[in-house]
C-alpha cells in the first residue's frame, strides 16, 4: 500500500510541467528582437558607407515603420506580402521537421499557382462558393504532386531532395513558360506568356475594398491562419506529425520504432508541396488574377529564410513571415519617402537572419536582458 502511494506521488510529480525555461524565452523572443536591432544599426552603417546622410537614414527608418504598420494600407500590404511567405514557410518548416531540406518551394508555388489559374478559368461557370475553394485545392494538390516527385525519388532511389528540388525548380520555370504559351491557356490577343484571367468567382475576395479600393488585403489571410493552425495540429497532435518529427530528429530511431521511412518522406514532401502550392494559388487568386512567368517572385526562396527564422515552428513561421512581409511593405515606403534602394531591404533581411542564426553573437553584443551565465554550464 505504502509502496503504491509513494509511486503515485512520484508519478504526480513527474507530470508537473517545469516553468518555461528562461533560456528558451531568451532564444525565442529576446534574441530575435536584438538581432533585428543590430540588423537595423548595421543597415544604417551600410547606408552611411554608401554616402546617405543621417537625416535620410532617419527618414528611411521612419518610412520603414510607417510603411509596414503605420496605416491601414501599410498593414494590408504587410499581410498581403506575408500570406504566401507564411504558407510556403509552413511547408518548408514541416519538411525541416521531417529531416527534408526542400529547396523546391519556388517550383511548387509556380505549379500550384498555374493549376489554380487554369482550374479557375476552365470552370468559370461554377459559383463562387464552389469555384474558389476548388481552385485553391487544385493549387494545393498540384503543389503536392510536384513536391511528391522529389519525395518519391528520395524514397525510391535515394536521390537527395536538395538536388532534385532545385532541378524541379528549373523544370517548372520552363514548363510554366511553355504552358502559358498554349492557346487554351494564353490570354486572347497576346503573344507573350500570360494566362487568361481568372473569373471573379475564383478570386479570393478583397476584404477591405469597402474602406478603400486600393487596399489589397484578401481572404487568403484566413487561409494562412487556418494553415498555421493545421500545421501545428498536424505536427504536435497527430500520429503522422509524431512520425514526421521522429524521422527528422533521428531516422535510425524512427526505423527502430517501426515507422515507414519512405512513406513518411513522400507524405511529408507532398504536404510541404501542398502548402507551397497553396501559396502560389493565393498569389494568383488573391493578388494577380492571372499567371505570368515571374509570379513566384522568389517567395519560395525567401520562405526558406522564414522557416529557419521561425525555427520550423508554425507560430514562429507566422511571426517570421509577418516580419518579412513588413520589411517588404516598409521597404517600398523607404524607396518612396527617402529614395533608399530596395537592395537595402535585402541587406537588412539578410542581417536579421545572420544574427538570429548566431545567438551567441547577439548575446555577446547585448549583455542586458540575458541572465548571467556561469562560465561553463554544469553537467
Amino acid at each position, binding site marked *: 500500500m505504502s509502496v503504491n502511494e509513494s509511486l503515485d506521488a512520484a508519478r504526480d510529480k513527474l507530470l508537473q510541467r517545469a516553468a518555461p525555461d528562461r533560456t528558451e524565452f531568451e532564444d525565442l523572443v529576446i534574441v530575435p528582437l536584438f538581432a533585428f536591432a543590430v540588423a537595423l544599426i548595421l543597415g544604417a552603417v551600410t547606408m552611411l558607407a554608401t554616402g546617405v546622410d543621417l537625416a535620410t537614414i532617419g*527618414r528611411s527608418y*521612419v*518610412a520603414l515603420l*510607417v*510603411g509596414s504598420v*503605420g*496605416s*491601414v*494600407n501599410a498593414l494590408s*500590404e504587410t499581410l*498581403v*506580402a506575408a500570406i504566401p511567405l507564411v504558407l510556403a514557410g509552413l511547408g518548408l518548416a514541416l519538411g525541416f521537421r521531417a529531416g527534408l531540406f526542400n529547396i523546391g518551394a519556388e517550383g511548387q508555388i509556380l505549379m500550384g499557382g498555374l493549376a489554380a489559374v487554369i482550374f479557375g478559368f476552365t470552370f468559370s461557370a461554377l459559383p463562387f462558393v464552389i469555384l474558389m475553394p476548388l481552385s485553391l485545392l487544385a493549387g494545393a494538390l498540384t503543389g503536392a504532386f510536384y513536391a511528391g516527385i522529389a519525395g518519391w525519388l528520395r524514397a525510391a532511389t535515394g536521390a537527395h531532395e536538395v538536388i532534385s528540388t532545385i532541378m524541379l525548380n528549373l523544370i517548372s520555370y520552363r514548363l510554366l*513558360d511553355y504552358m502559358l504559351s498554349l492557346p487554351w491557356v494564353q490570354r486572347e490577343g*497576346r*503573344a*507573350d*506568356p500570360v494566362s487568361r484571367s481568372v473569373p471573379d468567382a475564383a478570386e479570393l475576395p478583397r476584404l477591405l475594398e469597402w*474602406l*478603400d*479600393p*486600393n487596399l*489589397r488585403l484578401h481572404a487568403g489571410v484566413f487561409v494562412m491562419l487556418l494553415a498555421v493552425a493545421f500545421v501545428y495540429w498536424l505536427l504536435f497532435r497527430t500520429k503522422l506529425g509524431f512520425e514526421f518529427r521522429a524521422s527528422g530528429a533521428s531516422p535510425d530511431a524512427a526505423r527502430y520504432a517501426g515507422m515507414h521511412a519512405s512513406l513518411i518522406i513522400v507524405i511529408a514532401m507532398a504536404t510541404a508541396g501542398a502548402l507551397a502550392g497553396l501559396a502560389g494559388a493565393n*498569389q494568383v487568386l488573391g*493578388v*494577380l488574377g*492571372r499567371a*505570368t*512567368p*515571374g*509570379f513566384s*517572385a*522568389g517567395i519560395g526562396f525567401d520562405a526558406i529564410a522564414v522557416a529557419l527564422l521561425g525555427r520550423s515552428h508554425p507560430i514562429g513561421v507566422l511571426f517570421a513571415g509577418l516580419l518579412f512581409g513588413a520589411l517588404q*511593405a516598409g521597404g*517600398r*515606403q523607404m*524607396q*518612396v*519617402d*527617402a*529614395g533608399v*534602394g*530596395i537592395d537595402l531591404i535585402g541587406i537588412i533581411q539578410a542581417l536579421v537572419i545572420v544574427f538570429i542564426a548566431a545567438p551567441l553573437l547577439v548575446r555577446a553584443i547585448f549583455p542586458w536582458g540575458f541572465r548571467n551565465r556561469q562560465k561553463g554550464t554544469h553537467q
Partner: protein
Amino acid sequence: MQFHRTFRRLSLPLALFLAAPASAFTACQITDTGGIDDNSFNQTAWRGVLDAEDQLGVSGRYLESEAETDYEANINSLLGGACDIIFTIGFLLGDATQSAAEANPDQMFSIVDFAYDPPLPNVLGQVYATDQAAFLAGYLAAGMTQTGILGTFGGINIPPVTVFMDGFVYGAEYYNDRHGTDVTVLGWSPETREGLFTNNFESLDDGRAFAQNLYDEGADIVLPVAGPVGLGSAALANELGVDELMIIGVDADLYETDPERGHVYLTSVVKRMDATVYQVIERAMAGDFSGGVITGTLENGGVDIAPLHDFEAAVPAELMAELDEIRAGITDGSIMIGGQ
C-alpha cells in the same frame, strides 16, 4: 471611405514632415523588373524626369519593381496625393496601371508602350513607331554584314518588343530587294510571329547565351531587344571582337550609356522615351493633360537610329546616302514598312 479620408488627413502632416524639399510638381516613376539603372529602357524614361527636374523645377521620385507582384503595390504606394503624375514604364504594367487608373480617376497616369482601347481619360499612353527606326537599322546591318546573316532576339513576345524585330527584318528585306542580295535574319519571323525570346528582361547570362547561339549560326550582327539582357550580348561581342560580332543597341544610344563596351555597338535603335516623358510632364504642368496616346515617330524625333560613332569611317558613304533617302521615304509615306 469616411475612415480613409480621416486617415489621409492624419497622415498628411507626417507626409509633409517626411517629404523631401517641397516642390510644386512631383513626377513619379515606377520601373519594371529591369530596374532604374538598366542602361536602356527604364533609365531612358527616367532621364526625361531628370531633365524636367533641371529645366522645369519638378521633383522626381522612382520606385523599382522587383517582381510582377510588386506592380500594383508600387502604384498603390505612390497614390494618396504625393505624386502629381505617375509614369509606369512598360507594357507589362498595363493591367496594373489600368486598374489603378480606374480606381483613382483623379490621378494622372502615363504609361510607356501601352495604348488603351478605348482610351482611359486619365492615362496618357506613350507609344513609338519603333519599326521605322529599326527598319533603318536592319537596312544598315544588311549593308554591313560579312556573312550575310543577321540575328535578333527579344525579351518577351509583346508588341513593344516585336515591333523592333519587325522593322529590323523588313529593313533587311528591303536591302535585299534593292541590291539583289540574300541577307537573312535569324530569330524572328514577322509572318508567324514566332522567334527567339529570353522570357525575361533581367538575365545577362541569357543575353550572352542567345547571342552566342546566333553567332554560332553565322550571324555577325545581332539586335537584342530585351533591355539590360543585351548587355550580356555586348560582353560577348567585346570578347570576340567587332570583326566577328557587332551589336545593335535598343532604347538608348548604348554607345553613351554603356561606354566600356561602346565600340561593339554598330548603332542603336533609339526610342526617345526621355523626350516623350518630358513632353508629358510639360503638358501636365500646363494643365492640358488628357487621356489618349502620343506617338514617337522618325518624323517627330521620337524614334531614330543613333550616330555611328566609331563605325563612321567603316560605313560606306553610299550606304549612308541610301539611309537618308529611306528616312525621307518613310517620313513622306512612300516607303511602307512591311510593304503594306
